């Protein structure tokens, strides 16, 4: 029953993307023509969008479930740190970042009337992310700027749960090629304003600010997860055995699953060209794999400093 619901949702998602792709393919050529025309007639070099170096940190609430080892959800806090690069203006949005984090998660175990069980997992996570978005003139207007494009992400999630014995270490390798949509709203303070707060008067100067909402949805989803029995007695070549190679010997690639992530961010630009960004990021992944599924979601509050480099 649950599988049917998930399939239905995936079907709707696919339909949504077909629709979006249709829009994209019909609008892009025109946009390219416009750009080409502009460049020929004006004989001007196109202005390069400003480039920023990103440095982020944040707190995340992490939920996962690995059906191969437990039917229970594990939840807990984690810290995340990112470094990346962003090139953005009204026409283009190009970003990459690497992200590292770690934390602890606790099994959501039903209340016992006898002696309560507790199990804890620790995890490390690393992610590589890239996106390239172009604005869609037909959808953009004075209210907001809309961009569409693609994104790619790979993350490895290394989990350790001592109570699971030889299945205590699990590595989830998830790779997604996604369709991305971003809507940006310029909420700049155009004129100077005065605010009174507890009899303190503050003059707020004009400031450039934006509010953005981005959605990424997986189109091609790959995962590399443990095999049928999870633990595996691979070949042992004496002391020459590579423990990492031995560990991954029965991991299997699968092309299935889904990924959906959203990011709501508020960016405030400073007079020196740098900016501060506050973001709420939600990211959910499902990877049925070859044998047993994996589900994960994170809710992250993130602060980013954008250093203008060009």
């Amino acid at each position, binding site marked *: 029953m*649950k*599988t049917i*619901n*998930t399939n239905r*949702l995936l079907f709707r998602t696919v339909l949504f993307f077909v629709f979006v792709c249709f829009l994209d393919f019909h609008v892009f050529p025109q946009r390219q023509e416009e750009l080409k025309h502009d460049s020929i007639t004006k004989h001007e070099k196109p202005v390069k969008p400003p480039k920023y170096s990103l440095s982020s940190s944040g707190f995340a609430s992490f*939920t996962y479930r690995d059906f191969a*080892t*437990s*039917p*229970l*959800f594990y939840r807990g806090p984690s810290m995340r740190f990112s470094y990346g690069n962003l090139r953005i203006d009204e026409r283009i949005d190009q970003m990459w970042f690497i992200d590292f984090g770690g934390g602890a998660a606790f*099994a*959501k*175990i*039903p*209340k*016992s*009337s*006898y*002696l*309560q*069980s507790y*199990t804890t997992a620790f995890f490390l996570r690393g992610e590589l992310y890239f996106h390239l978005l172009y604005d869609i003139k037909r959808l953009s207007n004075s209210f907001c700027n809309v961009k569409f494009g693609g994104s790619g992400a790979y993350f490895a999630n290394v989990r350790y749960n001592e*109570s*699971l*014995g*030889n*299945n*205590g270490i699990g590595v989830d390798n998830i790779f997604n090629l996604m369709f991305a949509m971003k*809507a940006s*709203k310029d*909420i700049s303070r155009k004129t100077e304003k005065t605010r009174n707060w507890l009899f303190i008067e503050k003059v707020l100067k004009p400031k450039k600010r934006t509010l953005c*909402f981005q*959605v990424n949805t997986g189109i091609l989803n790959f995962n590399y997860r443990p*095999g*049928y*029995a*999870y*633990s*595996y*007695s*691979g*070949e*042992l*070549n*004496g*002391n020459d*055995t590579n423990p990492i190679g031995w560990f991954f010997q*029965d991991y299997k690639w699968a092309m299935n699953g889904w990924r*959906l992530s*959203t990011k*709501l961010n508020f960016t405030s630009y400073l007079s020196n060209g740098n900016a501060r960004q506050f973001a*709420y990021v*939600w990211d*959910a992944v*499902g990877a049925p794999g070859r044998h047993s*599924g994996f*589900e994960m*979601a994170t*809710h992250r509050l993130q602060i980013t400093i954008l250093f203008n480099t060009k």
Partner: protein
Amino acid sequence: MRLTLILLLAMLFSSCERLLFQDDMSSIDPFENFDYLWNEVDQKYSYFELKNINWDSIRVEYFSKLYSEMPEDSLFKVLASMLVELRDDHTNLVSPFNISMYNVEFLGPQNFNFRIIKEHYLGSNIQYTGSLVHGFLHNNNIGYIRYASFTNGLSDRDLTYVLDIYKNTNGLILDLRSNGGGSIFNVPQLLARFVDSKQLVGYFRTRNGISHSDFCDKESFYVTPFSGMRYQKPVMILIDRGSYSATTFFALATKAIPNLILVGDTTGGGGGLPNGGQLPNGWTYRFSIGQLLDIHENNYAEEGVPPEIAVNFDWNNMAVDEIIERAVVEINSMTK
């Protein structure tokens, strides 16, 4: 207003993982927990056929003992009894109040008392080097090395130091009695000191399908020689029913290495690599998901690896370790 609406929609859209995930499966219901465990074992346990276990009839027998609202300790007893039917000490159910075990060591007599060895054999010459306890026996002609658990790490430095002490002896006694196992990587590390060329010593195979006979292709288990200090003279490996898991792996491997001879009682077994998992009520479990085969692909390691020289302890004489005595005799006869 429009902006607020968008923000609200964005927040709402960003919290829908519950729609995407399958339902929460946590439960204290005895029937759900029983079914979960029974199915996991059914789909992954590796020794049904070797041990001639009818898992379906076991389900019928133990399912009938369940009832709604049964106390958790009663449920534990039912599940634990069901797992004991597998006759496997790599199979355990772990709750906050109890751990189920098969206790394979009770299948044979106890054959080890370290106090006798310390008091009547090693005396004040005993040395502790890392995970190894060692000393000279028999007028310094034989070295005795005790490795109590494969969970204790072995360093190349310690092994080299210890073997260097006994390099001029006629033979070694490596005592693995009551060694309950541990890390499999310590097995080739120790064996590497007793071979002079790369040797195939066994095979592994892991369950990979729903049918009880579904296994992946066998994987080879090689031992490669250590490049430094090695010992090529006779080595008596002392084993008993308490020698389990990684120690059984070690004992099986010695069958392919001529200068290593097993003395004592059959090992406890534990030839299958155990997995690990968790029930909907939070208890954890493990059971064997693989098999260990010898170089001729014989599948007996789970029931125990028999010694070349069978000797048992005589508990009437608490000053003599008959198994060590027999090993000494064997080394002396080989060096004459």
